[in-house]
């Protein structure tokens, strides 16, 4: 079993070394329960906000599992234009065959964010956090504050 682990790690290292000479696009699936924005579409690069840091994904990225924070997912399509979407939370999976699945709970186009509405909502959620009593309420209010802060940063 140790031998198998070593072989597996060596293969992973080889993949990392080959990253620079890879093909220029990889298939991205980016969707939420209600909308499928990209379905195995070829894209050049995706930047995602995750709990382990904000990082960019290029073809032949090391296989990874990541949890998304509220923030902006920025996709560089094959044509070269950059599309930005705000996600509330979710997961990102990068597989060994270079396919990437980003599944978010809620997605909205950055252009659709109304700055004033979001700032007002942030104030309301901050006061909710201050007045929350139980652990569950505090956690829920904190999540709201995090999401709105993310949105205000982008609006």
């Amino acid at each position, binding site marked *: *079993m140790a031998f*198998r*682990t070593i072989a*597996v790690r060596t293969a*992973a290292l080889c993949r990392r070394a080959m990253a620079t000479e890879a093909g220029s696009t990889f298939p991205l*699936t980016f*969707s*939420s*329960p*209600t*909308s*499928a924005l990209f*379905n195995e579409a070829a894209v050049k690069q995706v930047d995602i906000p995750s*709990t*382990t840091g904000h990082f960019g994904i290029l073809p032949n990225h*090391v*296989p*990874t*599992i*990541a*949890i998304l924070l509220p923030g902006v997912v920025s996709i560089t399509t094959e044509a070269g234009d950059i599309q930005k979407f705000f996600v509330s*939370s*979710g*997961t990102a*999976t*990068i*597989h*060994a*065959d270079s*396919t990437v*699945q980003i*599944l978010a*709970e809620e997605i909205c186009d950055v252009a659709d964010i109304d700055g004033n509405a979001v700032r007002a909502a942030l104030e309301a959620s901050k006061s909710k956090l201050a007045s929350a009593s139980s652990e569950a309420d505090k956690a829920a209010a904190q999540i709201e504050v995090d999401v709105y802060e993310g949105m205000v940063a982008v609006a």
Partner: protein
Amino acid sequence: VVGGGHLGKQWYQRRVGKQWYQRRVRGVYGTGAESLYTKNEFESGEDKLILAISSDRGLCGGVHSGLGKAIKAAHAEKPITKTIIVGDKAKAILQRTMGDTFLATFNNVGKKPASFTDAINVAEEVLSHEADTVDIVYNKFINVVSYDSTTKPIPGVASIEANDAIYNYDEVDSEVLKCYQEFTLANIVYHSIREQECSEQSARMNAMENATRNAGEMIDKLTLAYNRTRQAVITRELIEIISGANALE
């Protein structure tokens, strides 16, 4: 209108067309969510929890009974100890033989299309019980006239960590894996519930269309019999009157 078969082919196609579009969207999400399990072999643990997905409403052909049959067959092959039931129909079907395995049941299912929040509630209930693997049993939508009961095994966090394949993935630690697993389970449960609704709706439309057609045929046959009888009675009365008149002359 439950069936809508009598409203014509176009209405039928439009209604099903909307389901198909929504299903394509959900399909992307559903396939994406289970990508980790389909691309890697994780062994199913021994300790299984069955999540049966049906609904409260009947009149949909063999949808719920097919599901019940699949679960009972699995139970006969290897006894199941833990089940969570979504929907009163499955609960009624499995109550007698497997009633003691029920950990939780959900009802008020099927009147409106399920939302992601509903899926989260089910997933939270599932995660609150210990199990190596969760087997989701539901009806997969194949096309407008056919569906099939399917079992989807979702390995638990412990099974995944025990398997070397997961360490191909960077940045994997217990915390990330647990978060990932919870969200992914909610996604897959959502996808399964919506697939089940789709299968049920098309099965219901087919069943209602058949029932309408059978009733129509019966009406035609009975109308013919009625007319024949009525005419026979009139003819007999005429004959009696005419022979009576002849006898008087």
